[in-house]
């Protein structure tokens, strides 16, 4: 924990506030349950600002309550003409100066945090991971350039290390947001690249959102950040590098599925290696938490998706009814066999039914 904030934490108000706020929301989703460097830094900043605001609000409300209780016009006193006060220099100075001080108290950590989160000093250093993030309507692509692998929808990172993200968009503006471990940053089409970093403290599957309106399925553009220990992460990289797109699946239907897939889908999708970029890389598909970011990973759902992606994610770029339902089932068999790495399998997405 960063020094000065640690001391503040012990103060009663902060303690109470922290307790109150962290009661809100669900682990690994909520910004109020920080599990990473960025989110924790920002949570602390929020606490400071909320404390200041509560202080101000209490004062305003105290005067307010007093005035309303004390100075109501009473029956029979309608004729009284109160003193027509023009103003009061001393008071006016007070309520100019105190807010300025309070704002300075807020401004300093704000500027610090702003620069802290924009820090890129270790990017490119030996052993520091950088992932290229591309936002597409309505899915995310993650390229690990140095490792020569790419994934979609799920980004794997090692815990307790800074992972830099170089972010772009291929079509319209999106925004990459993982409330539980970092803030958000827009991905923009064109020449502009943004950079942010992730640092997760604990292993886990963290919910990610697209936060910039990007079309009808903007609200369905989820992704996952999967934080695993550095050793497991290395294992995962190796597994991913070893994916052989040509590998023959075990069952007969899956083999037909593979053929169908290669004929119909490969123009947009890739299995392992670098990605074509039109559609998600399906290399490790069977290990996905969700299909297309939102559906539970069952065969039924997968067939539904393959035949009618437009009904599940309105406006998305994958054509409907490319293949018949039977063929889709075969392709599904094939895709669900694409289980090339079990890293992260033991981590479950936190989710509480209400």
């Amino acid at each position: 924990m960063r020094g000065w904030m640690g001391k503040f934490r012990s103060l009663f108000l902060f303690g109470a506030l922290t307790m109150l706020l962290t009661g809100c929301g669900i682990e690994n989703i909520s910004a109020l349950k920080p599990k990473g460097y960025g989110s924790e830094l920002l949570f602390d900043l929020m606490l400071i600002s909320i404390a200041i605001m509560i202080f101000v609000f209490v004062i305003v409300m105290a005067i307010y309550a007093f005035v309303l209780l004390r100075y109501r016009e009473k029956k029979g006193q309608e004729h009284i003409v109160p003193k027509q006060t023009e103003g009061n220099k001393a008071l006016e100075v007070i309520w100019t100066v105190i807010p300025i001080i309070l704002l300075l108290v807020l401004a300093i950590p704000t500027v610090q945090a702003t620069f802290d989160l924009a820090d890129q000093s270790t990017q490119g250093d030996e052993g520091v991971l950088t992932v290229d993030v591309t936002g597409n309507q309505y899915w995310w692509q993650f390229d690990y350039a140095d490792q020569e692998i790419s994934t979609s929808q799920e980004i794997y990172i090692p815990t307790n290390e800074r992972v830099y993200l170089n972010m772009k968009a291929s079509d319209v503006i999106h925004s990459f947001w993982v409330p539980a471990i970092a803030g958000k940053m827009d991905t923009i089409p064109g020449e502009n690249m943004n950079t942010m970093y992730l640092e997760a403290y604990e292993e886990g599957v963290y919910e990610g959102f697209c936060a910039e309106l990007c079309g009808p399925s903007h609200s369905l553009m989820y992704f996952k950040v999967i934080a695993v220990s550095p050793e497991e992460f290395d294992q995962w990289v190796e597994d991913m590098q070893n994916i052989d797109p040509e590998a023959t699946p075990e069952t007969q239907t899956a083999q037909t599925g593979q053929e169908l897939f290669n004929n119909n889908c490969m123009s947009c999708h890739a299995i392992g290696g670098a990605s074509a970029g039109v559609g998600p890389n399906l290399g490790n598909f069977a290990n996905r938490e969700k299909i297309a970011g939102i559906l539970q990973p069952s065969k039924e759902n997968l067939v539904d998706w393959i035949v009618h992606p437009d009904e599940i994610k309105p406006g998305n770029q994958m054509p409907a009814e490319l293949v018949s339902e039977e063929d889709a089932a075969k392709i599904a068999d094939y895709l669900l066999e694409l289980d090339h790495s079990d890293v992260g399998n033991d981590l479950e997405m936190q989710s509480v039914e209400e």
Partner: protein
Amino acid sequence: MSTAVAQKRGLGAVIWDYLTTVDHKKIAHLYLVSGGLFFLIGGLEAMIIRIQLMKPDNDFISAGLYNEMITMHGTTMIFLAAMPLIFAIMNAVVPLQIGARDVAFPFLNSLGFWLFLFGGLLLNVSWFTGGAPDAGWTNYAPLSTTSPGHGVDYYVMGLQISGAGTLIGGINFLVTIVNMRAPGMTYMRMPLFTWSVFVTSTLILFAFPALTVGLFLMMFDRMFGSAFFDVGLGGNAIIWEHLFWIFGHPEVYILILPLFGAFSDIFSTFSKKRLFGYSAMVFATVLIGFLGFMVWAHHMFTVGMGPIANSIFAVATMAIAVPTGIKIFNWLFTMWGGQIRMTAAMLWSIAFIPSFTIGGMTGVMLAAAAADFQYHDTYFVVGHFHYVIVGGVAFGLFASLHYWWPKMFGKVLNEKLGKLAFWPFFIGFHLTFFIQHFLGLMGMPRRYWVFLEGQGLATGNLISTIGAFLMAIGTIIFLINIVYTAVKEKKADADPWEHGRTLEWAIPSPPPHYNFVQTPLVRGLDPLWVEKMDGKEGMTPAEPLGDIHMPNASILPFTISLGTFIAGFGFIYQVDDPIWLIAVFAGMGLTLGSMLTRSLKDDLGHHIHKEELEEDIKKGVGK
């Protein structure tokens, strides 16, 4: 009385009267009715949004329709409801408060209204012609430039037309306030409402041109193949964001400042005290307006402007809390030591203070650039801006309407019903929007058509929806009140609140169409109060009774605006088929022809003769 006369003249004549009127009081009525109608439409859209978000995975409306709904809700509420309602109050009150007989440019005043109305109608026609705009009220490129169909084209043309109307209105009020004040009404004697309209108009003057340019570029990109926002040809999507927010941030102060002014007048009237710290209030208003131009990029903290720019804009934004705080405390101390009378207008104003303070404080939290990485584009932001907009602007409009209704329509709105409308709206408001701050932080981005089961967001959203229904009930009671008052209430006096302090309360409710029989002489701040304290009945005139020069009515503002409306359709559809260029030429022809007519035909106005005035005085109009 104009309305009484009108009733005798039959419906056709009344309509013609309103189509051609250049009287600021009637234009105020027009703004009120059309702005009110758009508020109901915008509110209906809000209800649909809330119903869709009532439970997880809801499919009350489709994803595409949802985006149209939020876009039209935001656009309608800001441009077609809040702005015109503010203009309604401005028109009704400002000339009276400064002791003028009309605004500086009565003709342009009417033109401004019709441009707004036709722009608004054009925008809403999109619902029936294949889809409303769907890229959010902020209309970010390239989502907007690539949006299929014509929705965004309607957005561009509709806002361009109504924006021109607003700009005209702004200039009009600036000149009115500078040039038309009654003798003795120095700048530092102007009522605070007038002051804030002055500052607001300045903001309009400098903010709207940026939107105009942005809309032109958007129009060129969508309709004529230019490449401003097309990255394929070297364009840059961020230019739109900057242009939009250079306009957009001042716009939110354009919305709130006039109501700050109205609250100042209301607090002082119903506390029976002069405004505490008048000069500080004026200074704070000007300062807010000034700072309002230096903070726009706080809407773009996550765009990647870099830490230096982010920090500068963060600190500049926070600075606005200081002048706003000065205002809050001055209002509190205006009431301090006063005789607070709890009318409906006062009730809305009292409710405004805590509500707006919460909204302002969440604003300052948003201004902490780094923390905005968490807040941005979540329901936290939605919570913030509804707190300031509904808790500030909407409450302010309700308060102002209650306060000035007698001056506009000659009857005091029923107080009981007024308070009855207040409570469900007030409670519903907090229910709807307070919880949204938490929803945002718990991981609910804004503009989400659905949220999912198991994200812990269901309860909060349900509460929010229930609140929205309460607000609807409040609104409906307010509407009932209007009807009830029109039918049942009796005619109001010149000064129905008894403690009126400013000039508008010195003349009958509603005023004769020349407002002041004789221009009043202003002898201090709160001129009417000054006279009252000297034991006088009314204002001392500054001029002898004489002929009054008044402008002539004209249909040209209507035809000019109609022309732009027609041309608007032409521009939108010429992309599909050049035959629509006919509409462009016909519309522009009508517009330019009407403008030329206006320019070449002398319009010298007419005089109301001294004899008629004496007649009116006998009937008790002059007082």
